[in-house]
Each structure stands twice: as structure tokens, then as C-alpha cells.
């Protein structure tokens, strides 16, 4: 329904509010056609997205529960003492039921861990993470409430944490290592990589290890991360970088390793876990997930279903409006539907 009241010159038609214009009017026909088109687009897209999601092979192994399943045998896990330097070594045996094409990704998943709490997300010092040595006073606002570590120096004084803050010092320090992969009883070579698991931008710009000399010079005043977490050499450790990118929701997955070998069906992966991270205290849970990817990333049913649902709603509304239009239409512009009277 294009209107034809455009005028010749731009300023004139602009000032006179007579620009060439299009007046869309929400007529039933228009709506029915539009909804039909939307349905015709959304339903196939939804089906495709659902298919993509279904194509993702995923094995979730909640090793903090202590109870395994046929796909996931847990051997001696969930015995964290909570003491430093006391690691509980346990093993998971994950059976791949369907072939998982390379690359396969290994995530750890935490539940009920509020990495998005307001105080938690604020409690970090980015300058410190970039390798600066800062005093307690200059960190007090950034890292509150966790500035001092728990390991005293030679004089028995507590030292400033490097890095300080809640995020850095609640680091998920369970370790995973592939012991063996077996297919039909035979060991198969599997490439396991723990690099390239963090955002490149984070790696390059945000985290700088303190040089060993500087570290030695400040050892009396600062408790460096290698002391806090013996497994972590410096803040440039990729697992640490992954951890520092806080999760949005209390249940989250973080990437741990990438397996660049296609895992055939019935491949058994034995994974050694160095268990350090307690979850019982906060009623949480931790899992290991191995997963392939799709266009949506990991397994993601929601988008596909939502697209199908929106398409279906559109189709349903189009049909409903069509029935209304066919049975008792309101002719557009007809005044008889208005109750008008004059006195």
C-alpha cells in the first residue's frame, strides 16, 4: 500500500512531512501471509538446528557422585580431603558408545557454583594478572575480600596473594590426564592436547607470568600461584585462564582438553583424575564431559525446539486467523463494527 504523496524536492518534502512513504497496515491477509512465511522458514531451520544438536555425541560423567554408569565407571573418586598437597587420585573409564569424530573436547562441569556472584566476579586484579607486583593496600579494593594467602613466609607473616581475589583463589584444581584409550582390548593412540583451550585474546593480553627473578625478589611479601596451586606454574597456565573467565550461570562447563583423534564406537577412555577441588561443602557437583561439536557449539536442543515451536505457533495462528477470516471476517475499514450513534 505505498502512498503516493511524495514531493519533488527533499527539503520541501521533509519539512512538509510529505516524504515518500510506505504505510503498512496490519490486515488479516497480511498477517496470515507473513505468519505462513515465518512458519515456513522457522520450522525447517528448527528441524535443522535440532538435527545438528542431536548429531552431537556427548558423554557426561558426574564423578563427584561416586556412582557411575555403564558408560562411565568411577573408581575411587569423590574423596577430596580439602587439604593442600593432598591429592586424591582416581580413575574414570568412559566408554564411547557411538563414534565421536575428531576433534572431541573434554570439559569439566561444575554445578551450584556461583561464579557469577557479584562479590566473586569483582574480586580480581587485572593489573596483577598482567604481571605487576602490587602491595596489599593497592589491591584492597580490587581483590576484597581475599588479599592475603594462607602460607606464611619465613618470618611467619602472611603474604599477599599473587594473584589475589576470590576467582583466582577458588581455582578448579582437579587435573585430568588420559592414561589409555582402548578399542576392542587394544590400545589406540589418542592425541590429547591442553593448549588452545582459552580465548586467544585473554592469553595474549590479560595474563603475564611474573619473571622468576622478580618472583624470587618478592617471595617474602607475595605468595605466588605456584605455591597456592602447586600444579599451576604461573598465571599463563591455560586452565587458569579458562577459569578466570567467569561463567554466566551456576552450572557451567569449562574446556579442559582437546582430543584430536576420532574415537570409534566402544572405545574406552581411561582418565586419571587428580582430585583436589571440594564440592561437598557447597552442595555442588562436578562432572567430566566429552563432546563433539555442532554449528551451535555443544549439545543445544533448546534453539532447535524453540524455532520449531515459534514456527508452529505462527502456523497455528495463521490457520486460526484464516478460519476467522473465512467464517466471520471483519472487512477492513468497515464502520459497522463500531458502535456509533449520534444524538
Amino acid at each position, binding site marked *: *500500500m505505498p502512498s503516493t504523496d511524495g514531493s519533488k524536492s527533499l527539503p520541501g518534502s521533509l519539512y512538509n512531512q510529505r516524504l515518500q512513504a510506505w*504505510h503498512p497496515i496490519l490486515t488479516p491477509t497480511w498477517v496470515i501471509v507473513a505468519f505462513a512465511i515465518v512458519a515456513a522458514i522457522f520450522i525447517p531451520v528448527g528441524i535443522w538446528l535440532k538435527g545438528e544438536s542431536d548429531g552431537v555425541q556427548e558423554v557426561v560423567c558426574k564423578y563427584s557422585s561416586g556412582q557411575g554408569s555403564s558408560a562411565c565407571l568411577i573408581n575411587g573418586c569423590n574423596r577430596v580431603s580439602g587439604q593442600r598437597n593432598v591429592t586424591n587420585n582416581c580413575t574414570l573409564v568412559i566408554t564411547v558408545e557411538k563414534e565421536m569424530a575428531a576433534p572431541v*573436547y573434554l570439559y569439566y562441569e561444575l554445578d551450584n557454583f556461583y561464579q*557469577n556472584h557479584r562479590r566473586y566476579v569483582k574480586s580480581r586484579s587485572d593489573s596483577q594478572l598482567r604481571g605487576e607486583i602490587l602491595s596489599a593496600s593497592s589491591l584492597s579494593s580490587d581483590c576484597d575480600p581475599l588479599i592475603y594467602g594462607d602460607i606464611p613466609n619465613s618470618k611467619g607473616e602472611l603474604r599477599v596473594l599473587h594473584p589475589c581475589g576470590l576467582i583466582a583463589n577458588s581455582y578448579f584444581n582437579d587435573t585430568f590426564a588420559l592414561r589409555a584409550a582402548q578399542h576392542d582390548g587394544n590400545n589406540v593412540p589418542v592425541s590429547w592436547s591442553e593448549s588452545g583451550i582459552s580465548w586467544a585474546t585473554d592469553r595474549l593480553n590479560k595474563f603475564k607470568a611474573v619473571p622468576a627473578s622478580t618472583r624470587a625478589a618478592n617471595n617474602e611479601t607475595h605468595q605466588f600461584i605456584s605455591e597456592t596451586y602447586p600444579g599451576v606454574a604461573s598465571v599463563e597456565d591455560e586452565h587458569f585462564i579458562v577459569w578466570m573467565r567467569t561463567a*554466566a550461570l551456576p552450572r557451567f562447563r569449562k574446556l579442559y582438553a582437546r582430543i584430536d583423534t576420532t574415537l570409534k564406537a566402544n572405545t574406552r577412555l581411561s582418565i586419571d583424575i587428580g582430585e583436589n577441588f571440594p564440592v561437598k561443602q557447597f552442595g555442588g557437583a562436578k562432572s567430566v564431559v566429552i563432546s563433539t561439536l555442532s554449528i551451535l557449539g555443544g549439545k543445544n*536442543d533448546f534453539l532447535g525446539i524453540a524455532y520449531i515451536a515459534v514456527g508452529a505457533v505462527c502456523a497455528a495462528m495463521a490457520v486460526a486467523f484464516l478460519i476467522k477470516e473465512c467464517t466471520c471476517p471483519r472487512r477492513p475499514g*468497515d464502520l459497522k463494527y463500531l458502535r456509533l450513534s449520534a*444524538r
Partner: protein
Amino acid sequence: SSRSDAKPGGPTGAAAAGAGAASSAAASGDKADAPERALRGRSATAVGVSTPVAAPGVFFDEAFSESLAATGPESEAVVAFATIMAVCNTVVPEEVDSDDPAVGSRIEFQAESPDEGALVKAARCFGYELASRNTKGLTVTLAGPPSSRDEAGKRSTGKSRAAAEGTPVTFTRLGTHKFSSARKRMSVVVLDPRDKRCEGDPAVAKGRGAPQGAWLLCKGADNKMVDVADPSASELARKAHAVLDQHLTAFSERGLRTLVLGRRWMPWSEVTKWRKDFEAAERTVGGKDEALERVAEKYERDLELVGATAIEDKLQDGVPQTISDLARAGIKTWVLTGDKVETAINIGRTCKLLTDAMGEPMRVTATSREGVLEQLRAANAALDRFEQSAGADRTARPPSATDRDDDEDDRHRLAAGSSLNSVSVPGGKPVRTWGKRTPTPPTCWAHPSDRPKGCLGLVRRAWDMCRLGASWNCGDGGIVVSPEAAGRTRLPKGLVITGPALDFVLRRGRDPVTRRQMEPDLELEHELLDAAQRCQAVIACRVSPKQKADIVALVKHSRTTPPMTLAIGDGANDVGMIKAAQVGVGISGKEGLQAVNSADFAIAQFRFLKRLLLVHGRWSYRRMAKVLLYSFYKNVVITCTLFAYNAATGFSGTSFYESLVYSTFNFVLALPIIAVGIFDQDMDQDSMLAHPSVYVSGLRNLHLNVPKLTLWILHGFLHGAIIYAAVVLPFSLNAGPVWDPVSGLSDGRAVAGLSAFSAMCWAMQGKVALLTQHWTWIHVLMLVISQGGFFLFIGVYQEFPTFAPEFLGVATNAMGRPAFWFSSVLATAGVVIVDVVLETVRLMGCPTFIDVATERAGGIVDKDDAQARPWGDEGDVHPGGSSHARQLSRAKETHSSARLATQRAASRSSMPQRRPGAFRAEALQSVSAGPSEPPSAAHDAPARPPPAGETPDKPFPAPSRE
């Protein structure tokens, strides 16, 4: 000499009668050369006053000229009459070079008020041309008529006189008493060189060499002049006064603005005294005006009245049409004028404010409080009676909840040109609750005649029953509302009230004399408002500038349904009123710039008010409503997502969005809604001009009210939930934050927040797109800039590791995830689809008048339907009767000829405009009720010829109903 002894007596009496009868110079504005002049002159004969014959540019009255040429006491008065016209003014003559070389230079007049200019011009036509003016005096060129009585007899006939070279006569002006609205007159004290007694040196106070005296020449409003007329007038003079009165009445009944001219001979001793007083007053510091006023009062007395002038105050183009269109739009017009009652009523009739259907207007003219109260009560009683009789008609009809024909009936009347705005509640039971739910018959979902039979019919019937049971009022679009609820309906009655009577009513603020706080007279105020709000037309005459402002203030602050007031005027005396009203409009005209300078809007002609209100006013309101509601809405949406996220953070108050990104929200989304706020049009201007009833949007505040706001806020909650779900659910279910299809990287809070924010922006743009009813390239450009700007911003902002470490790389990473885009599309689609579904259901079931009007304006009309059913507010047809059908069909035929006429009118537009500023002052009061009767416009063509340049592109269905 006996002649110069102008004492009251014979000559005076003759003068008054003579001047009055001779012509009382009906000058027509300042454009005496307009062809309409002649028309006016002819129609004047009917009143029985001598006929001024008009040639282009000339005001000529034979009888008057003859009297001017004749000798005798009568002629003497006529000369005085012409002299006063030429001399008693503050007009500045200016010699300008004429375009015509044959004529050479000519004199043009710079007048403070157009009335004065008109009088001076008229005097020129009699041969009294004001040629120059300086501080000491002024020169009048006499084109031949007797410059003094003595020579009069020797003069030859008119024709040779006209050819004669003018004689300059220089009057020495001793002083001027300026016009004031309290005195309503002005005067000059002059030495007339034609008068021997005035010979002498005016500088000499007394004795030899001094003149014998001077003339005080005065002109002013008739009642004020009669007050200061010589009380010792003879029998003859009194008779002449009676004739004068007669003529004044005749003039004002024709809508002419009258002035009375008078003079007094002041002996030199008095002049000396006056001079002392006058000079003392001029020297006064502080209160100079009051002092001069007192001097004027003191000496303007015992006047010998010499005649009356009448000036036609031409209405500007299109005033009647504008007033009737405004009435059809549901706007009520009050005229506040300084004119006399008869003049005002006549102007009211000319501009069709008062229609024949109204009969004689009710008058409130008493000069005592009791009298005013009585008259107002009588007026209200008459209105009550009228209302009851009208109400009886209504209740006589069968209740429509059961009677299907009722709707048919309504439509018939609608087609008959009745107003769409006032609607009665069927069933004869008035429902007093505007805004509350009123039981309405089930005509909304589908019309009974469309009702399917059989099974579907049963469903429909059940649905109707439910609806009735729920008392669901779906017609709140200004359609189903009782007159009682929407304030009192206007009745086709006129009310005229005078300034003196208003003095008793308007008792707010401080007393102008005693400066004491006055006690408001609530009883009178109530009676006046009650009557005035029910009358279709209200005219207040003889009101002072302060009263104008007070009336507007009274109406504005009336306790029952205080309306929105608009004051429009062109003169300095309208300034108070313009400032008092919510909307002040100034007409830039000949009466100076004070009105324009103090107004909110300045327009060049009264008729542009129609466009100002019906087009720009309505658009502006609609746009404002959209911008406001949308601004509330979008902030509800963002707050809603923040709140939802808070639940996922243990209610710790973590912000979902990066702080700077969050604060760009209202900037990012500003441009598209600004474009809507400036350019949106729900209807095109031609449709709105052709159908003023759509103005009901603003009158009833249909688009910006508490229910609307509530609805929008609820939408905000719903849409916030949809957006949050569309983004956060894919982030939390199944694989959670793994959206990276390439490296399987896990994303965190930053990506989730940015995704939600981006999806929300898309969705909000979708919402603006739905709001936009008028798509121009500007709207598209704004959407592109807005959304493109957002991506540009996040792209740049993510590049500062030290400034915003939290946001580093977030945009690149997020935009690299397909799920980011899929969730944005999902959120936008969800929001838009929900809105479209709700809106479509509403439009299918419960369209409002504005919806239907928009459809008609947009041209989405069933073809058969368009032919069969007019808008109903075409208006210019007679309501009721069998003649209307004929007229309607005639309307179709005349449509094309009306267009032709328009074109002709347009080609004539190079002609000089008629005097602007003729239409004095209106307080337009909008009440919630619509006009109860369409303006009677029998003399108009059935199809209104559109004003020049406003020809609708697409003609609306020409009515052709049987």
C-alpha cells in the same frame, strides 16, 4: 460669527443625524478595493442605510459627498465628521513611489490599528487626505471640498472639484490623548486653520495674539462616547441621538464595528489649563499613563457627537470552514471579543459558530449579580429542558442489547452525517462511568449480520454471552461511551455573555483597583461553566483583555473535567489570554507582533489553525504517546532481563551487562524512536483534514493513558521474559556455555550478557518497526545507523585491555558464535510475533474508530464497502430528513466540480489577501464530548471543496447511500 459658534443646538443635532444618516462611512478594512466591497455595499441597502457605491480602491458615498459640498449647519457637521476622521488618529502617512509612473508618488498609511487605517483611508476618499505629520502638527490635503465655511458657497460642483489640486491645510496639534482600553476612546486637541477663531500664536498663553480656543476631536466606542456626550443637548440633539442609536444598532447587527466621532470647542483659557495638566501628567515619573488617563477623562466631556463610523471587519479566508471543522473534530469554540453584542453575534453567524439550528442565542447581559445569576439559571434550565427532550428521544428506542437493528439504526444516522464522536449508550440506561466497564452489546467480535449459522453460530453465541457476562468494554477507542460519562454533551445552543456580566463571575485573583484578593463567586462560576460547557457556541462580548485571560483561566481550572484550552488571537489585547491558555497561538497580522511574541505557535492566518490542530497537533500527540510509551517499555524490558538474571546469581546483584554497554542502551535505541517521534504518521494529512473526527485521539487521550501505559509495561515484562529465555536457555541447558562451533571454547558471563543485550536491541528495533506506521527512508536509515552503531561500538570497545579488561575480545568471540545470531533472531521473532498476534486479535475483534479510520486512510477498504459506507463525518450534509440521501448523491457529482473550484481558487491566490487579523480572539475549549449535532452548513456545497493546495490525493468514498 454665528457659524463658528458651535454650541450645542441646531447644528449639532443636525450633525449627528446627518452624519449618521449620510453614511457613517462604512469602510471595509484596509482593502477597500477588493471586489467583495461592492457586495458588502449592496447588501447594506437592505438595512436601510444609504448606499456607499464602491469603485475599486475608492469609497464613495454620493449622499455624503453632497452633504460635504452643501452649505448649512448639516454640512458643517459633515465637514467636522470628515475632519475628525482625517485628524483624530495616530496614523503616520508615508510617501511611497508608486509602481505606476503616471501616478507618481502616493501616500500610504502606517496605522497602529487597522481600524484607524481604514478611517484615514475613507477620509481620503472624501478628499481629506492626511498628507504628513510631524511633532507639531499634521497636514491634511483637501482635494477640493470647502476648506472653510465662507468659501463653500463659491465652490463649484463635485466633478470639477475632484480635478482640482488639493489645498494643504496644516492643523497644529496641541496634544494627543492616546487610546486606552479603559476609556475606549482617543482624542486630539488641535487648532483648525480653517477656523478663524483658531488663528493666533498657540505659544501665547492668553491675551492678544492667542487663539480664541481649540478643538478637542474625539473618537471612541459608542457607549463610552455617549457617556461623555453633552448632557445639555437640545431637543433636536436628543432626536439626532436617537437616530444615531438606530444607526449604530443597524450597523452592529450587520457585524460592523462602530465608532462614534465627537468634538468640543475649548476656549483658550481652558486650553491653557488643559495644557498645564497635560504637561504635568507627561512629566510624571511612575504612573505616567494613569496621570495622562486622568487628564483625558477630565477634558473628554460634553462632546458634541457628530456621527458614527462603521467598519467592516472582514473575516479571513476560511474562518467558517475552520470553525465548523474544529467543531466536527470535537473542539469547542468560544469567541472572546471586545465588540458589541450585536456585532459579535453577527460575526458569530458569519463564521458559522452560531447556526440557524441554534435559534436565538441565550444572552447573559445583566449588570447586577442577581441579574446575572438569574439569567444563567434560566439558561441552564433551558438547556436541561432541551437535554431532557433529546434524552426522551433516545430512551424511546428499544434496548439494543437485544435489538440487533439498533446498530443498523446508528449507522444510518452515521451515514447521515452525524458525528462519530458522541455516542449514546444503548438501552436507554445511561452509564455514568467513563473508563469503567460498561456492558456493551456483542457487536465487536463480528457483526451480527456476519454471524455464521449452525455450530459456529452457537460458539459465537456462547462467546457473546461470556463477553456480556464479563461486561467487557472493548470499545474504549473512543467509541462506546455515554455522553454523561464523557462530560456533558454539547447542545445546539448558543450563549452570549457580556463583559460587565462577566465581572461578577470572574472574581479570582486581585481586584484591579483595590489590589485586594477577591473572593471567588463559586455559585456564578458553576452556573456559567455548566451552561457554557453544554452550549455548542459561547460568545463573550465587550470583554477586556484581562477578562479574556480570566475566562481562559476559569475554564482551564474548572473542576469538572478540566479541558485543554487553546487561545488564539492577533492583537495585543489577546496576550493575556494567550499566556493563560495551555496552548497559545498568535496570528501574525496587522495588529502588531505582541500576540505572536507571547504565543507558543505563530500562524499567519486563522484558517491555518485547522492544520495546526488537526494535522500537526494530532500527529504530535500520537508521536509523543508512542515515544513515551516506548521509552517506558524498553526500560521495563531491560530491567526485566536484569531481574531475571539476578535470580541466577543468588540475588547478589551482579549486572548482566557490561557497565558501559548497559549505559549505551538508551543511546543505541534512541535514533529509531526519534525518527518515529518526528516523522510518524498514523494517517496522512489529507485524510485528517477531510475527516476531523479522527481528532478524537487527542480529545479523549486515547493513546497515552493509564490503561495504555499499564498494557505497555505488561508487554515489557512479557518481552523481557522472551528475550531472556531466548538467550539464557541455550546458554544453560545441555552443553551450557559452549557456543563455539570451531574450537569448543567455553564462554562466560560476558558473552551471555552481550548476547542478551544484542538480542534485546534487535527485539527493540523490531518493536519500533511495529510502531512505525509511516516508513520513509529516514526510518530505515535510523534503524541501520542505530543497530550498525551498536555493533561498531562493541567492536571498538572490546579493544581496550587496560580500560575494559572484562570486555576484551568479547564482541569478536560472541559474534563468531552462530548461536549468538540464532538466539537474537529467536528473541526478535518472539517479541514481534507476540505483538502481531495480540494486535491482530484486537483488530479482528475490537477495532477502535481510529483503527478503522487508519484502514480507510490507508486505502485498505473493501471496494463495495467503500461505496456503501461513507466515513460518516463528511459533515456538510443536513442531518436527518429525506433530503440527505439526495444531497449525498449530489455530493458525488459535485466532487469533481469542487476540485475545479479549488484549482481556480489556487490560481487566484496571487490576488491581495484580505485583511488578516480580522478574526479576533477565540478560546478554544475542548471538552471530552463530541459535538452533538453536525454543524449545519446548508449553504455549502455538499462535498466540501478542499482548501487550495489541500486536495486529497485519494478521494474518500463519495457517499451514495440510498
